[in-house]
């Protein structure tokens, strides 16, 4: 009876351990992925904000924003603005991200 009892306890503990290990293994990538996604989203939002700031502080001082344009020319527009408005490379990148979030 005692040995059966200890065998039962051992099996339960083993099962729980295996399940816990399995759960840990399957949880690990999900947690890392979620963190990465969160960080990327946060960075993206920050760049978006900065791009909007660059647009408001540099482009819209002279002209209104054109009502929509093809994303195919957004890089060309940004490069033109970099020269015309004396933007730094960092501001150019932020502006490009603002046009193509």
């Amino acid at each position, binding site marked *: 009876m005692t040995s059966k009892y200890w065998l039962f306890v051992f099996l339960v503990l083993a099962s729980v351990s295996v399940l816990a290990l399995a759960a840990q293994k399957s949880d690990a990538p999900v947690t890392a992925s979620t963190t990465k996604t969160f960080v990327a989203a946060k960075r993206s939002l920050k760049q978006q904000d900065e791009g909007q700031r660059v647009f408001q*502080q540099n482009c819209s*001082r*002279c002209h209104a924003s054109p009502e929509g344009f*093809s994303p*195919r*020319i*957004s*890089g*060309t527009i940004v490069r033109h603005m970099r020269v015309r408005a*004396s933007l730094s490379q960092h501001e150019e990148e932020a502006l490009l991200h603002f046009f193509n979030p």
Partner: protein
Amino acid sequence: MSHMTSNSKSRSSARSIICLVFAMGVFATAHSGFAQQTPLISGGAGLLTDTNNGNTTYYPIIEPLLAAPIGKKVLVESRAALLESFSPKGAGQAGYDHSHFIGLTFLQGDYLATPNLTFVGGEFLIPFNTYNERLTPIWIGNYQDAPLIFPLGLLSSSSGLGGVVRGNAISRNRYSINYNYFYSTRSGTEQFTSHRGTGGRVGLYLPEQRLEAGFSFDRLLQGTHENFYGAHVWWEPKDTAFRLRSEFGRGQHAEGYWVEADYRTLAFGGLDSIIGRIEPVLRIQQTFRLDTIVSDGLPPANTQRVDLGLDYNSPHNIRILTSYSRQFSSTGNHNVWETGIVYHFLFPAWKGKE
């Protein structure tokens, strides 16, 4: 239209078309290495009118702008003006006389050397004060007329042939400093007329205050060498649609200033509401003659002028510009009425990679 009529470039349309075709050829060789870098065609098309002493002149105009990136560091860009003007025949005759103008405003190649330094070569807009580089496109300016002091510092042609170094020297969250320095050579080529001269501009911008101040200087290095000085202040208070722009210019024989304010209200549904699209504009300007030599394009006598404008920013990139100006001078006072409609276009030059 003074910035156009004061332009001393030749009006040879044949050569202009050759230059435009050449420019198009350059753009056609551009390869877009990135999906977002397809060459573009932008610009404005409009019909402008001005009524001076009861005579109305009509100006159909197209100002195309082409920009083509080449690789990661080069941009080739050009702007042209194609203008026809219809003005009443004088001496009591019926009907209209007309003349046309086709010319390149600039054709330049830009090389982004470092994050803070860009080299520009070719025919470029002279970076003296702000109006020439920022506000001359018809789809940007609030008035058809350039300010009276516009010719000061532009070396008679508003564009130079040579090179510019420019960029953003320091860029911080609280301030940034931009600079440029140019050298222009003398050229009598029909589409690239320029004068020998050199100069530059430095500007300080405070993003939190939305305040910009700058200083310009240049020197004409041919004929009678002359110096020109300029200063500008721009201010756009945050979270408003109010803009204040001003410039001061001084040459060897005259000086002057202009101050322009425009406003769009956010109170009735934002800028895209019917009320929000209305834009009242006010510009005050004065010029002062320092001696009797009139070689700089400014009025021959001290002049005061007030321009009252009312613009409407329609949907689909259309602007309606109207203004009334009263000019006071010892040579005579007069009124100028101006109206115009301008369409701003912007599209890829061809179908690029998706």
